[in-house]
């Protein structure tokens, strides 16, 4: 597979049985580390809680040996099966992952196989738990600086593994064939193209009254591409505050200059931009329908330069 731009951004896709590729966003490495630390904290708290409860139990009810057996078993189960049990039950999520909106998915799609969950979590023992416990609880006094250094190196290689591959996989993910993806939810906001601002030049059939305050010629729409359209969208969707108002003012001026738009009277900058957005989107979508995907303003500049070189298009 070629390394395209989207791959570097951490976007992956899976093809559904319907044949539609759905988009996956790889989990952020920092968030994954955070989720792991949360889980580790929960594990430690669970263990301390168990020890306390059983310790008291040993005093009153259980015998000392039985209590010891329980402690051994519970500690073993928490250490070995905490991640597996959660990921099995919550379909690829642990408490930490759920808090940070991460989940484990099968690289081949479909349901996450229990064997994949077992494989990726058994690796944690070698990846983290063993070097960590050697560092925290040195086994013998004879363990010297060199040994500690080797442990640190070991821990470093495994924990930094997600930094060294594009798919942000740790060794457990490689062995199990899994990705950790971010399950970010997007809210559907209102369409900026509202019926009241359909620009002139598009014949209207909608019953609503359509009043575009500002209108633009095709030449004025030809200067920008999809990138600029979507930047404009984020500006228009930004929450209303002083910074946004300043940005809107700035963007309005820039677009007016670039398109050489001429109009008089007082200007409502937001309205102007919203109308320009509507007109530009209609324009670009129309071209896209005919197979002409206009990526950005540079592409448009190049196109003008090759078609008809004109001296007055240098401003940006």
């Amino acid at each position: 597979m070629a390394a395209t731009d989207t791959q570097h951004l951490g976007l992956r896709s899976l093809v559904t049985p319907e044949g539609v590729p759905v988009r996956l966003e790889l989990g952020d490495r920092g968030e994954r580390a955070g989720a792991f630390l949360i889980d580790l904290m929960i594990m430690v708290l669970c263990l301390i809680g168990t020890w306390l409860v059983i310790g008291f139990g040993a005093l009153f009810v259980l015998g000392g040996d039985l209590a010891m057996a329980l402690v051994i078993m519970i500690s073993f189960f928490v250490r070995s099966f905490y991640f597996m049990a959660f990921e099995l039950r919550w379909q690829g999520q642990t408490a930490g992952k759920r808090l940070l909106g991460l989940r484990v998915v099968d690289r081949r799609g479909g349901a996450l196989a229990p064997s994949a969950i077992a494989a990726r979590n058994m690796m944690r023992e070698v990846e983290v738990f063993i070097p960590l416990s050697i560092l925290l609880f040195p086994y013998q006094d004879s363990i010297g600086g060199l040994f500690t250094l080797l442990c640190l190196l070991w821990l470093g290689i495994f924990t930094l593994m997600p930094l060294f591959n594009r798919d942000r996989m740790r060794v457990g993910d490689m062995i199990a064939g899994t990705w950790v993806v971010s399950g970010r939810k997007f809210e559907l906001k209102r369409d900026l193209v509202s019926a009241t601002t359909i620009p002139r030049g598009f014949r209207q059939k909608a019953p609503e009254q359509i009043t575009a305050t500002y209108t633009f010629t095709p030449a004025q729409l030809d200067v920008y591409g999809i990138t600029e359209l979507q930047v404009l969208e984020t500006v228009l969707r930004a929450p209303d505050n002083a910074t946004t108002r300043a940005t809107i003012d700035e963007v309005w001026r820039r677009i007016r200059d670039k398109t050489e738009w001429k109009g008089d009277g007082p200007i409502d900058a937001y309205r102007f931009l919203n109308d320009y957005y509507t007109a530009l989107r209609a324009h670009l979508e129309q071209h896209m329908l005919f197979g002409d995907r206009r990526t950005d303003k540079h592409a448009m500049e190049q196109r003008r330069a090759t078609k008809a070189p004109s001296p007055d298009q240098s401003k940006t």
Partner: protein
Amino acid sequence: MASGDLIKSYRFRAEREQNWRDLEGLIERAEKRGLRSLPPEEILRIPTLYRACMSSLSVARSISLDANLLDYLEGLATRAYFTIYGVRAGLGGMLGKFFALDFPAAVRKTRLHSSASAFLLFLGIAAGWSITASNPDWFYAFISADMAGGRTPEATRAELEATIFEAVSWHDALITFAAFLFSNNAGVAMLCFALGAIFGIPVVLLLLFNGMLLGAMCAVFAGQDLTVGFLGWLSIHGTTELLAIILCGGAGFYLGGGIISPGRRSRLAALADRGRTAAVVVMGAVVMLFVAAILEGLGRQLIQETWLRFAIGGVMLTFWLTYFARSGVDRGGN
């Protein structure tokens, strides 16, 4: 221009938005409380809404430039996909399939590697035995004095005999011992898997060392002419336990082999396949070790006859081997 209508993507959204919102609501609830918590008539709506959403996504990608709309649909489609195709059978069905099909199949798949692992373990036993037999001092190279629990080359015949035939009363210590043994063995089993990822080399050492440990112990009992009694004592749980360890070693080699020579596919794809198969073997082995711990903790103390101990060990071994060979094999064809 062509249609001269309202903007296409605007109309497109207006016509379908309600469906998307409905699907989103259903998915939201399914994610929180599980798909089964929804009433039947709502579950029935999901496939239709899902397909509509998928087709909307395809259309939106080609006609709309509204970034927010595209993000929303991509996110919704992905969530819906996992809600629908991510469901698995319940725990019961999963366990049933695991023991009836997956585990024996995975064991059959890794049998060559398990043979290698068995070879190494027995090599270790032979080495430990012969070394300790020729010079008893070597015993302490494999086992520390407190770990041996009195079963040292210096012990008398009577002392050794007591360790294998003395009936231990129902004592808490027994439970502690079994618990410790199980968690220790199961920990080692899973470690075998993980170490397999480091080209399998540590697995070789692990197998050899554990074999030597056992061999050294054998030599101590053989020195006092107690070989048969000791092997009987060992076999009651040992057949299950050693088999599990051999399988785990084999799983480690299988995984390591995938890194060294992935075959015709990419290393990553081969690894993912092998990792899962090996994981199935190890999970099954953990269950076997649990059985072994029960046999050891309970059966061994209750049963004092050497022949009965051998019989139980033999029956367990036959059971496991038959199970691995036959379970889930399609007898109809081929």
